[in-house]
């Protein structure tokens, strides 16, 4: 708790109200006059303080301040005067007793708020824990004062039997305004106790002590209605109830150190409980005026803790008459909620049916889609440009016409190998790097017959090309693109290189040509679309995560195209 006494400078925000600015102004202007007033006031307050300390009469003190403030309301001029004096007094007040400081200061601030409210609205508005008061205080007080004031108000407000909605809202405003402060941490447990305890809930277990010094766990009292109370003046009523239902009731006295009474009827009150130690969840209620009686039914459920009132007697009777059976707990629950249980079961059943059928449909869809993608990929893999096929054959025919038999033979078998590879690869998802390099070399050799360009297919030294794998026929479309758009134009000047690199977990393939580069708006026939489509298909199957990078023109060269593919290693 913040016990720092209120001190002079900047503790109040500059008041919004003109009248208050006036008060402050006057305070500084008429220091002399104030000093005199202070003397007289401090004398009376000093007396009051002594009175407080020695006679412990807080109410008297409050009423004294209230009396001052009452004057404020009646006559504004006079009120200002008094207020000024009050501030002046409080500014220099050295309060040593913590409790006294807090309670009188909080009361003062209460009155101060009331006063402002009156000036602003012309109405008497009590300083309850309301949002309106929160915002008003927030506007008027300096952080430290505000925190202290609100904390004191809440500390008291939360410790009542019921948590009123406005208090709850006030509490949340406080937590928002001062999160993670000592005060906030101190208030949370008090607030949470409210949240945890409601009628109809299972009561927390606690220890009861009888007057022979033996202790008993509250669980052993199942089948009896437990009435824990501080009400000693209702002993007569309790006794009558006890006589009527001797086996159904158990009265326990809530030990309250302040009011330990010799009047305690130890026959009626078989047990006592010590709320702070054994009953931490309840301790908060037992010391407030409104909650002095807690009733727990035969099944250990909290029935009422709103305090003793005229209905309490009938409530106890009703609970005592109710027969107890161990099975009843579940039976009652079942009967009570059978409608709901039926509803929930039906709902769950319907939900599961819906869920699984949706899943099945989804799975089936997925499978069809997978199959579709698979066939699509296969189709792409087995595709070779017919232009290329027939032109390659034509090139071979030319060797035969020129009776260059060996070359014709060589290229014919090369062509056959290429066809075979295309067919083979279309059956496989992945091929080894060596296979892919072989395939590309074959392909390029045949294409070079047509355009006479130079090419090179190479792998980084030491790369395990026989055992590294990549998706089959992934590169051919890019290479074909380079041939169609670069090599076919450049002819003998054309240079095409395909390089394989290994980097961390990836195979990096770079296809470089020295062609004119990709135009800014490539037309549809440019073939890049079909290249990227393949990659997208592979990636969408989530089997690969291939990255494609196209650099055109190549940096610092004003020409050429570089295709860079990052292919995750299979193993």
């Amino acid at each position, binding site marked *: 708790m913040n016990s720092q006494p209120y001190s002079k400078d900047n503790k109040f925000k500059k008041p919004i109200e003109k009248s208050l600015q006036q008060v402050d102004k006057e305070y500084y202007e008429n220091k002399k006059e104030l000093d005199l007033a202070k003397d007289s006031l401090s004398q009376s307050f000093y007396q009051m303080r002594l009175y407080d300390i020695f006679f412990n009469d807080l109410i008297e003190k409050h009423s004294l301040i209230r009396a001052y403030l009452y004057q404020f309301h009646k006559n504004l001029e006079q009120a200002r005067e008094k207020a000024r004096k009050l501030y002046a007094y409080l500014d220099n007040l050295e309060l040593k007793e913590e409790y006294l400081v807090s309670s009188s200061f909080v009361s003062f601030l209460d009155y101060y708020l009331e006063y402002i409210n009156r000036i602003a609205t012309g109405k008497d508005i009590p300083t309850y824990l309301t949002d309106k008061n929160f915002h008003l205080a927030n506007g008027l007080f300096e952080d430290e004062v505000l925190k202290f004031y609100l904390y004191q108000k809440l500390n008291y407000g939360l410790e009542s039997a019921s948590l009123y909605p406005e208090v709850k809202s006030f509490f949340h405003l406080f937590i928002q305004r001062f999160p993670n402060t000592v005060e906030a941490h101190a208030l949370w447990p008090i607030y949470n106790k409210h949240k945890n305890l409601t009628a109809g809930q299972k009561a927390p277990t606690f220890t009861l002590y009888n007057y022979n010094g033996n202790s008993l766990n509250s669980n052993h009292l199942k089948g009896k209605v437990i009435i824990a109370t501080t009400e000693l003046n209702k002993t007569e009523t309790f006794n009558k109830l006890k006589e009527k239902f001797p086996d159904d009731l158990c009265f326990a006295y809530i030990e309250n150190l302040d009011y330990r009474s010799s009047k305690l009827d130890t026959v009626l009150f078989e047990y006592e409980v010590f709320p702070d130690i054994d009953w931490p969840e309840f301790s908060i209620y037992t010391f407030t005026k409104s909650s002095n009686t807690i009733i727990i039914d035969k099944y250990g459920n909290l029935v009422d803790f709103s305090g003793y009132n005229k209905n309490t007697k009938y409530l106890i009777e009703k609970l005592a008459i109710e027969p107890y059976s161990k099975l009843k707990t579940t039976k009652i629950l079942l009967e009570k909620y059978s409608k709901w249980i039926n509803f929930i079961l039906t709902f769950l059943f319907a939900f599961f049916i819906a869920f699984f059928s949706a899943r099945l449909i989804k799975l089936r869809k997925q499978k069809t889609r997978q199959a579709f993608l698979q066939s699509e990929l296969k189709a792409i893999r087995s595709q070779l440009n017919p232009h290329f096929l027939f032109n390659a054959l034509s090139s071979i025919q030319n060797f035969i016409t020129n009776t260059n038999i060996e070359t014709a*033979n060589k290229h*014919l*078998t090369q062509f*056959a*190998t290429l066809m*075979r590879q295309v*067919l*083979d690869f279309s*059956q496989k998802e992945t*091929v*080894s790097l*060596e*296979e892919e390099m072989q395939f590309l070399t074959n392909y390029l050799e045949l294409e070079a017959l047509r355009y006479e360009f130079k090419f090179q297919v190479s792998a980084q030294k030491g790369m*395990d090309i*026989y*055992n*590294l*794998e990549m998706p089959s026929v992934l590169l051919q479309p890019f290479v074909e693109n380079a041939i169609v758009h670069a090599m076919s134009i450049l002819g003998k000047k054309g240079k095409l290189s395909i390089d394989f690199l290994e980097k961390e*977990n990836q195979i990096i393939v770079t296809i470089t040509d020295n062609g004119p580069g990709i135009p800014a708006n490539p037309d549809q026939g440019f073939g890049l679309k079909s290249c990227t489509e393949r990659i997208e298909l592979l990636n969408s199957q989530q089997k690969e995560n291939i990255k494609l990078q196209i650099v055109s023109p190549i940096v610092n060269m004003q020409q050429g195209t570089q295709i860079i593919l990052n292919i*995750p*290693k*299979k*193993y």
Partner: protein
Amino acid sequence: MTLRALIIDDEKNNRENLNQLLTKYCPQVSIIGLAGSVDEAYQLIQKEDPDLIFLDIKMPEKNGFELLEMLPKINFEVIVVTAYDQYAIKAIKYCALDYLLKPINYLELIQAVNNASKSIHNKKENLQLKMLVENLRTQNKPDKIALPSFDKVDFYKIEEIVRCESENNYTHFYLKSLSKITISKTLKEIEELLAFHDFIRVHQSHLINKNHIMSFLKHDGGYFVMADKSEIPISRNRKQEILKLLNLK
């Protein structure tokens, strides 16, 4: 030494083409006959007792494999010549037999003839072909594999293979008997051959027989301890897939 050879193919052009290629590139081969069908070839083989036959597989009526099945004893070498037949090629690969693909690459032809001439000296029963015939007859997946080393071909039960490890384009076989055989084939080729035999590629350079896994160690990304006490790392990229495949996850 002259190799007495037969060419069996149903297409006249193919027979003549091969005949010419052999005349041009393989002078040690003398063609003693050309056959257009299995029945014709059967007669010729009985009559001529050749050292080597070039055998086409896909032929009308009876195919090339049926010819081999018809013969009571095979004491010659066979070079299979096929246009496109994945199934036949796989069967041939199990037995490590030579094959040629049409149209014939003369470099491969020279290589195949050289290989054949090495083993023709002793006119023993050809075990590789016998195995091929057996495999074809049973229709089941073969239980043996032929592993050709530098100077001989040995047969091993596939279930005896604990694991295979690659070294560039070579593959080391580790057997249950703790012996090690190295052949000149890539692990990828072996993987494709053993795909239906409980073999799993767990790593870029490791193919393991899942029946010979002793334990799975979780440290350092996971290891399989195999029957030969070797510790085989698991590919990080394929780990989930592999563990799922082995019901370890």
